[in-house]
C-alpha cells in the first residue's frame, strides 16, 4: 500500500520534473558546458591541431605543421568559417584576428611550399613561437581560458597563469562590486522594510490591509514600468530635479545627476526589491502577539530592551527570509541597472548580457554565468537549510 502511494506521488511529480529537466536544467547544463568546452578551433583546424599535439614545443613547429595550417586555412576561407576562427583566436592572443584573416586572404592568391618559409613571409607572426603556443592552447576542446578570463587571469606562452594586464582587469572587481551593492541594497531594504512591516502588521486590521496594498501594488506592477517611473523621476529634466529647482534648493544649471550612475541603480533596485523584504517580514510579524511587548514593558523592561529581547528574536525568520531573498535577487539583477545604471552602475549580469549580445564572446558569458550560478546556488541551499524551501509562501 505504502509502495503504491509512493509511486503514485512520484508519477504526479514526474511530468513537471521532466519538463523542468528539459526546458531549464538542460539549458543550464549547456551553458556550463560551454564555459569550458570549446571545440571551434579543433573543428576548423583538425589536422593542424592534431599535429601541434605532437609538437615538442621547441623553437618552431616542423614544416609538416606549417603545410597543414596553410591547407586548412585555405579551406576555412573557402568554407567561410575563417571569420569565426579569427575571432576565437584573437581572444586567445590579441592581434591574431588580423594575422589569421590576412594570411587566409594571401593564401587564396599565392603561396607555395616550403610553407615554413612562405607563411612567415605573409605574416611574420608565424615565425613567433608564442603564436604557435596560442594556437595549440586554443585547439584544446576543454579549455580553462574562459574561467581564467572571468577571473582576470590568462595563460602565458610558457603555460604559466598570470594576471591580465592592469587595463583589462575588470571581473574580479565587478564580482566584488556586485556582492557589495547587493549587500548594501539588502541592508537598505531591511532598514526601510522592517519598520514598514511592523507598522502594517500591528495596525488595526482594516488599515493594515489597506497599507498592505501599498506594498503589493508595486510588487505586482511590471518591473519595466517601475524602472520607467524612476527614469521619469530621476532624469536631469525629471520631476525630482524640477521640484528641487523650483524650490530653489538646486540651481537650474546645476541639476543633480541622479541616474545613469550608481545612484540610479541603488534607488531603483531598492524600490523594486523592497516588497520582497516587507512581505516575508509582514507574514512573520503578523503572527507575533503585541501583548508580549506589553507584558515585557509592564514587567519594567524599557522599550528598546523589550524590543531586543522579546520582539526581535521572534521576527528573525522573516528577517532571514527577506534578506536572503533580496540578496539573491539583487545578485542577478539585470534590467534595472541596464536602464538606469549608466556606465558605473552596471553589475555582473549586465556584463553577461553584453558578452551574449554584443561582443558575442559566449564562452566568457558562460563562464561568468556559471560562477554567478554557483554563488546563487549556494545561497539557495543556505535558504533551504535555514528556512526550508517547502515553506516558502508568495504574497500575503
Amino acid at each position: 500500500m505504502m509502495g503504491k502511494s509512493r509511486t503514485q506521488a512520484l508519477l504526479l511529480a514526474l511530468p513537471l520534473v521532466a519538463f523542468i529537466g528539459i526546458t531549464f536544467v538542460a539549458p543550464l547544463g549547456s551553458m556550463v558546458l560551454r564555459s569550458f568546452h570549446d571545440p571551434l578551433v579543433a573543428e576548423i583546424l583538425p589536422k593542424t591541431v592534431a599535429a601541434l599535439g605532437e609538437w615538442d614545443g621547441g623553437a618552431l613547429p616542423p614544416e609538416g605543421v606549417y603545410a597543414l595550417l596553410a591547407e586548412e586555412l585555405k579551406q576555412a576561407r573557402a568554407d567561410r568559417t575563417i571569420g569565426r576562427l579569427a575571432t576565437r583566436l584573437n581572444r586567445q592572443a590579441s592581434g591574431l584576428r588580423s594575422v589569421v584573416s590576412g594570411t587566409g586572404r594571401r593564401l587564396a592568391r599565392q603561396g607555395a611550399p616550403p610553407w615554413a618559409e612562405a607563411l612567415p613571409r605573409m605574416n611574420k607572426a608565424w615565425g613567433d613561437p608564442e603564436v604557435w603556443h596560442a594556437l595549440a592552447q586554443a585547439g584544446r576542446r576543454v579549455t580553462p581560458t574562459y574561467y581564467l578570463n572571468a577571473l582576470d587571469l590568462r595563460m602565458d606562452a610558457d603555460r604559466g597563469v598570470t594576471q591580465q594586464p592592469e587595463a583589462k582587469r575588470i571581473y574580479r572587481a565587478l564580482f566584488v562590486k556586485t556582492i557589495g551593492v547587493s549587500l548594501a541594497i539588502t541592508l537598505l531594504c531591511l532598514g526601510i522594510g522592517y519598520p514598514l512591516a511592523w507598522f502594517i502588521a500591528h495596525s488595526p486590521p482594516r488599515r493594515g490591509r489597506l497599507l498592505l496594498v501599498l506594498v503589493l501594488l508595486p510588487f505586482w506592477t511590471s518591473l519595466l514600468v517601475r524602472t520607467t517611473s524612476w527614469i521619469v523621476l530621476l532624469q536631469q529634466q525629471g520631476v525630482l530635479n524640477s521640484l528641487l529647482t523650483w524650490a530653489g534648493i538646486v540651481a537650474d544649471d546645476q541639476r543633480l545627476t541622479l541616474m545613469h550612475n550608481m545612484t540610479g541603480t541603488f534607488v531603483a533596485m531598492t524600490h523594486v526589491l523592497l516588497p520582497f523584504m516587507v512581505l516575508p517580514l509582514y507574514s512573520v510579524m503578523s503572527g507575533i502577539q503585541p501583548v508580549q511587548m506589553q507584558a515585557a514593558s509592564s514587567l519594567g523592561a524599557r522599550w528598546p530592551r523589550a524590543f531586543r529581547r522579546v520582539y526581535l528574536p521572534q521576527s528573525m525568520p522573516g528577517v532571514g527570509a527577506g534578506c536572503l531573498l533580496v540578496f539573491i535577487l539583487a545578485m542577478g539583477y539585470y534590467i534595472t541597472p541596464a536602464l538606469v545604471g549608466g556606465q558605473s552602475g552596471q553589475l555582473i549580469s549586465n556584463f553577461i548580457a553584453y558578452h551574449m549580445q554584443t561582443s558575442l564572446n559566449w564562452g566568457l558569458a558562460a563562464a561568468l554565468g556559471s560562477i554567478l550560478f554557483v554563488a546563487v546556488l549556494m545561497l539557495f541551499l543556505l535558504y533551504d537549510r535555514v528556512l526550508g524551501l517547502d515553506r516558502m509562501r508568495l504574497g500575503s
Partner: protein
Amino acid sequence: MSAWRAGPGTWALRIFCGLGFLFLMAPILIIIPLSFNAEPYFTFTRGMLTLDPDAYSLRWYEQVLLGERWRSAALNTLIVGVSATLLATTLGTVAAMGLSSPAMPWRRTITALLISPMIVPVVIAAAGMFFFYSSLNLTQTYTGLILSHAALGAPFVVITVTAAMAGFNSELLLAAASLGAGPVRTFFKVQLPILSPGVVSGGLFAFAFSLDEVVVVLFMAGLEQRTIPREMWAGIREEISPAILAAATLLILIAVLLLLALELLQRRSNSDKP
C-alpha cells in the same frame, strides 16, 4: 496596543513609514498623469501644472492602442503568456499534488529542483536557454518562448498549490472513494474545486511573470515575437517616447486587476475553510 507603541518615536515611526509608503507608491502614481501629456516630454509642462486642458491629450494612448507595433506586441504577449500559463499551471498543479502526498520520496530535493527556475537569475537562465534552444532551432520561435516562460513560471504554481494543499482535508478523498468515485472523478469534482483558488492564483503569478519578462525575450525572440515588455525596453533604450508611459499606465491597470483578482480568491479560500 498603544502602550507598547507609545515608546520612543511613535511620530518618528509614523513619519518614517509615511515616507516609506510614498517611496513605494510615488513612482507608480507619477507616471499616470504624465501619460496624458500633450507634448512628447517625460516631464510636466507648465500647461499641465496649471491644469490647462490643452496640455493633456490621449495621443499616446491612441498610438499604443491603435498602432500596429503595440497591437502585434500585445498579441504576442497574450499568445506566449496564455500558453505558458496553461502549461505551467497544469504541470505545476499535478506536481504539487504529488509533493503534498505524505508518501512522496525525496521531497526536499524534488521541491528544490522544481522551485529552482524562480531563484536562478534570469540572465543565466536566458543565456542557457539561448544556447540549448538554438541547438534545437527553437530560438526565434513561439515554441521556444512558451517553453521558457512555462519553465520559469511553473515554480509559482507549485508554491501556491502546495500551500493550498496544506489546508486540504485528505479524508475528503476517502469519503469520495467510499461513495464510489474513481480517482479522476474525485480529482475534478472534489479536489480541484477546493484547490481552485490556489491553482488560479498560481496561474495569475505565472501569467504576471510572463507579462513582465523581458530578458528571455531579448535573448531568444526574433522580430516576429516582440512582446509588450520588449517594446517598452526598446522605447526606453532606443527612443524615448511618452507612448511607453501610456503603455505603462495600462500595465499598472492590469496589475491592479491582478491584485484585485488575487484578493477575491483569497477571501473565497478563507471563507471555504471551516
